[in-house]
């Protein structure tokens, strides 16, 4: 690939072909191509329609509970003794994570397109719960594909989805995790092309999904930018978020892309460690390839077969990453670090004890790096961490790792 060129306007991507530099695109079977083009046209029209935006804003305010607070984590800041640490409290949204921002946008689009059946994939279950929630709200049937392994480790979320009226299909093909759930959802879509809307949960997949999901999640960054300017009278030195597929990260990064003084730092899941093959760090441990409709960094073997991701966090357990992150990495606008399972568990406990907030084990990966980042920035600086979800769903996992019975 050619050496990437730093653009003048980072926010001007993707291009007309759905590309962020070399990444993105539309690598899908022919049966889906006309649908993907329809979706692109429908989203472009909705994006430009003030009525659509007004409807979305109304639901974000009154149903989701936005804006979410930007909270100064005083004791966490004192603990590390570096820059001031702010938490963007996405875990306070309805359903307990940032996922609802995207689902609310997509369900309004699906209704606008006249679709009558919603399918989704989920890893940790947060996107599945958010999908089931908006489907319940608008009275549409919802089928959630979830790897059988994840169904087992996220039982409370499976039950939540059932309570919301969704059908959860346990996927046993392949490695029975998030990537296989996505394969199965794509197989459903290719079979039910006329009435079905595929509500992808992360900013992966084929164009226009990476752009659309990013746009729906960018509300996080827009609010953060305004809030930090109001509270501190300045932009932050760094914005930090965990990255699996990467939707919470791109959501908070995007409105800061052209503020080059603001460091953007993503944290990938290192699982057992980057010196093992049991991790989920596509950028730090993978190379570019094509999966699920887009070109991006992927975990794969020498032959181009996709390898399994491993992480304590079902939500980060994905071998790819959204294409915009791949591009931001190549052009150097964002940097991508890693945190292991053990470091994330430690960060989970630390935030619980110091701030009275149980973070999602996904968000705890970003927390695991926040001390180093706050110290690097130093006293007098400001850093913001996207607390993308709440940790109630993870108490069984955490207990198991601590060897405790609950």
């Amino acid at each position, binding site marked *: 690939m050619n050496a990437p060129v730093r653009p003048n306007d980072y926010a001007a991507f993707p291009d007309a*072909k759905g590309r962020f530099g070399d990444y993105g695109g539309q690598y899908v079977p022919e049966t*889906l191509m006309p649908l993907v083009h329809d979706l692109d046209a429908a989203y472009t029209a909705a994006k430009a329609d003030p009525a659509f935006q007004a409807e979305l804003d109304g639901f974000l305010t009154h149903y989701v509970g936005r804006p979410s607070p930007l909270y100064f984590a005083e004791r966490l800041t004192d603990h590390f003794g570096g820059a001031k640490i702010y938490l963007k409290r996405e875990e306070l949204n309805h359903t307990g994570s940032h996922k609802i921002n995207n689902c609310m946008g997509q369900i309004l689009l699906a209704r606008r397109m006249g679709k009558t059946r919603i399918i989704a994939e989920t890893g940790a279950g947060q996107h599945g719960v958010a999908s089931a929630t908006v489907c319940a709200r608008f009275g549409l049937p919802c089928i959630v594909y979830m790897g059988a392994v994840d169904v087992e480790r996220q039982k409370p979320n499976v039950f939540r989805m059932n309570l919301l009226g969704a059908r959860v299909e346990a996927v046993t093909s392949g490695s029975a995790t998030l990537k296989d759930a996505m394969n199965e959802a*794509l197989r459903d879509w290719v*079979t039910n092309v006329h009435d079905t809307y595929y509500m992808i949960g992360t900013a992966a997949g084929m164009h226009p999904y990476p752009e659309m999901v990013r746009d729906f999640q960018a509300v996080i960054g827009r609010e953060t930018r305004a809030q930090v300017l109001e509270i501190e009278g300045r932009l932050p030195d760094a914005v930090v978020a965990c990255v699996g597929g990467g939707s919470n990260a791109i959501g908070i990064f995007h409105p800061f892309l052209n503020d080059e003084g603001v460091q953007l730092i993503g944290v990938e899941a290192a699982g057992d460690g980057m010196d093992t093959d049991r991790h989920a760090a596509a950028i730090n441990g993978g190379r570019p390839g094509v999966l699920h409709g887009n070109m991006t960094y*992927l975990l794969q073997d020498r032959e181009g077969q996709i390898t399994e991701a491993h992480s304590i966090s079902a939500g980060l357990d994905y071998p790819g990453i959204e294409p915009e992150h791949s591009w931001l990495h190549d052009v150097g606008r964002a940097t991508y670090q890693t945190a292991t399972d053990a470091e994330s568990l430690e960060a989970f406990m630390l935030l619980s004890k110091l701030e009275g907030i149980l973070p999602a084990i996904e968000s705890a990966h970003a927390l695991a790096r926040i001390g180093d980042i706050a110290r690097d920035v130093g006293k007098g600086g400001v850093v913001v961490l996207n607390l993308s979800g709440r940790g109630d769903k993870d108490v069984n996992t955490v207990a198991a790792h601590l060897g405790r019975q609950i």
Partner: protein
Amino acid sequence: MTKARIDARFAALKAEGRAAFVPYVMAGDPDAATALKILKGLPAAGADLIEVGFPFSDPMAEGPPIQRAALRALAKGLTLRGTLDPIAAFREGDQTTPIILMGYMNPLVSRGFKDFAREAAEAGVDGMIVVDCPPEEADPLADALEAHGLALIFLTSPTTDDKRLPTVLRRASGFVYYVSVAGVTGVKEADAASVAPNVERIRKASGLPVAVGFGIKTPERAAAIAEVADAVVVGSALVDVVAEAVELNEDVTTRVLSKVDSLAKAVRFARRGLTAV
């Protein structure tokens, strides 16, 4: 120009006034030695062209039979080299039966399109079907294949309308593949009545032979499709025979070739109003 093999085969079939029978077998399934025996036996069993599946870990358009076959092959450590070597061995004894590789983008991206095209041509491959490579993304791959005389065969489907068809056919060569049902391989059944007008439409727009696949499992169905299409592709049903024979500890090669024989006869006699024995 190895693509010439595809053109020559379809020209000969046209002269005979019949459709081609195209079996799909998964490379390396159930094991390398058996897969090679099957491959070598296919022309005598009635295969006019052969599709060889190039396994991928995440085959998004495949139903359970081909998914499982791909995983069986990968579990035995099948590589790109391991896919191409048996084809080269097949070519030593057969210079006329076209071989089409069918797979997914990432293993080709991983190898590099140019190196892949060269190695595939050297092995005696004649064309490629890449399921997740729509025409919008095809140019770099099509360029590399063309440079080595390989055809990139495009998929059309019930959702490909007249407005879109020219986009799909822009770089089509060899033949055009019509996916007869909206769905994954080997699940829904193809219906000859709805297939016929689509085949006609695609044939007219492309000037190329049209092969029909997805959802053809029995000799009866194959015969019905053979009356309207230029080629009939059967995959999942054959791949299932491999799994079944392994399960029952039967001779895999014999079982597969006998199934190919019955399907090929059905296709061969379809337009003469005769029933296969």
